[in-house]
């Protein structure tokens, strides 16, 4: 019985739960947690899916789990290299079933800011930039994201800059899982140690919470798979995820 569920495990497991059988699923650069989610899903679930990644790998069997989510070991034992142009084209032609994309700020419609805190032309913080999202978020069948903290600075009514529009299908934080419903992010579930009230308080936009409840605890297979992937706890330490 899992009496405590770390924020790190909560994010990885809930990202993995967005993965559906047989679908083409992509993880990219700067995406350690989605990478772990994809590798976890390969281990923990009976139904297989098509895992492609930014290192060119297609259903790889990496000899180790790399710190860099674009590391070439993510193409080990792959039978093909599906290079960058190829997976972007796959997405823009409407055949990327699920992609994971980072986001610094997220609004109530699931749009993302990856560009800047402050004014674009006079940045307080220059962020990584357009990246995959501006093209992938509107063209992927589903795109999901994650944040390692949950606050009104991240979940905002108004983005400082709209890098990517189109709206995430799903968002995972240390305390909540949102999914898109009628064009807005709606709360699907909250961390068993959190509450609807807490999620409301720490979210800058209004959201529907119809039907939401505590997130089902991780299964033994999920727990076991993640323990295998992060045997020495390095990823969990590096991710520095706290519920509060």
């Amino acid at each position: 019985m899992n009496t405590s569920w770390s924020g790190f495990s909560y994010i990885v497991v809930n990202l993995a739960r967005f993965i559906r059988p047989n679908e083409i699923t992509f993880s990219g650069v700067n995406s350690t947690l989605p990478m772990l989610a994809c590798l976890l899903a390969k281990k923990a679930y009976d139904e297989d899916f098509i895992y492609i990644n930014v290192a060119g790998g297609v259903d790889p069997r990496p000899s180790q789990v790399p710190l860099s989510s674009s590391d070439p070991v993510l193409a080990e034992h792959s039978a093909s290299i599906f290079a960058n142009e190829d997976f972007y084209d796959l997405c823009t032609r409407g055949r990327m079933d699920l992609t994971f994309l980072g986001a610094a700020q997220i609004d109530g419609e699931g749009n993302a800011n990856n560009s800047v805190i402050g004014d674009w032309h006079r940045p307080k913080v220059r962020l990584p930039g357009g990246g995959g999202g501006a093209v992938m978020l509107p063209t992927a069948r589903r795109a999901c994201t994650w944040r390692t903290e949950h606050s009104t600075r991240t979940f905002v009514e108004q983005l400082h800059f709209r890098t990517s529009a189109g709206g995430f299908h799903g968002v995972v934080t240390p305390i909540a899982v949102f999914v898109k419903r009628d064009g807005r992010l709606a709360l699907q579930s909250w961390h068993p140690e959190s509450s609807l009230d807490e999620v409301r308080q720490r979210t800058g936009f209004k959201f529907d919470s119809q039907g939401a409840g505590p997130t089902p605890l991780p299964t033994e297979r999920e727990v076991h798979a993640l323990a295998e992937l992060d045997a020495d706890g390095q990823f969990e330490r590096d991710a520095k995820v706290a519920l509060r």
Partner: protein
Amino acid sequence: MSSGFSGKHKRVSVQELAAMVSDGTSLALGGSFLHRGPFSFVRELIRQKKRGLEIIKQSPGYDIDILCRAGVAGKLRAGIVAMEGNFGLAPYYRRAIESGQVELEEHACASLTAGLRAAAFGVPFQPCGGLHGSEIPALNGWKCLDDPYGKGDSVWVIPSIQPDYAVIHASEVDEWGNVRVAGTAHWDRIMSRAAKSVLVVAEKEVDSSVFAAEPEATLVPYFMVEAYAVVQGGAWPGSCWPDYEIDYPAVEAYLQPGDESLAAHLAVGPEAGGSK
């Protein structure tokens, strides 16, 4: 439904592969002229009496000729059509176009590629260099756009061309449907990306570890391939490098007039169970 084709169990006979194609379907055929075309598949379309197929290929020859001869082709979108290898024009194709039996959308090879690129890139149209002064764009109602940035010349844009299937004759396939080709890929790469689905006829099936040993060499990843068949010699009477060259006497025999010549030719295809 997934956007990809997962799992194993994709191997079928070339007869079953051809049976997946309905009348009126559009097919991009791989290879070029007499080289590495999916010719066993093409002959099987004839045996199964398909009708009204739309064929898409930059440089068809034997394939479009025999499909016209057998009444299978309804429309062709192509850049250049000939038998090549000293055989000159494709006679049954010529007759089909001259009689109006088959509709032609004439392209430059590169404009057809541009249309396939538009489909592969998920955009409605693709600029294509050249074409200035040609009467081909007017035939097809193509538009010439000014450079909205005021730096370049105006450019012809080709509308998206998305085949229902790309059909490729490959050197090797593995049990998942990964595809490799020796030598030039001709136009197979862009065809595989533009089409809704990819069907493959391969010279042979090899273990997936062969692919994993050199994943950079894989032309089409398995998840884009719906089904495959193995037909050794399936590009006959054309070549499949480095396994075999063009069978010139067979092409010459094919070109003899008359229904019997066609029947005799079909009877000795390697996929027919006969002997060459």
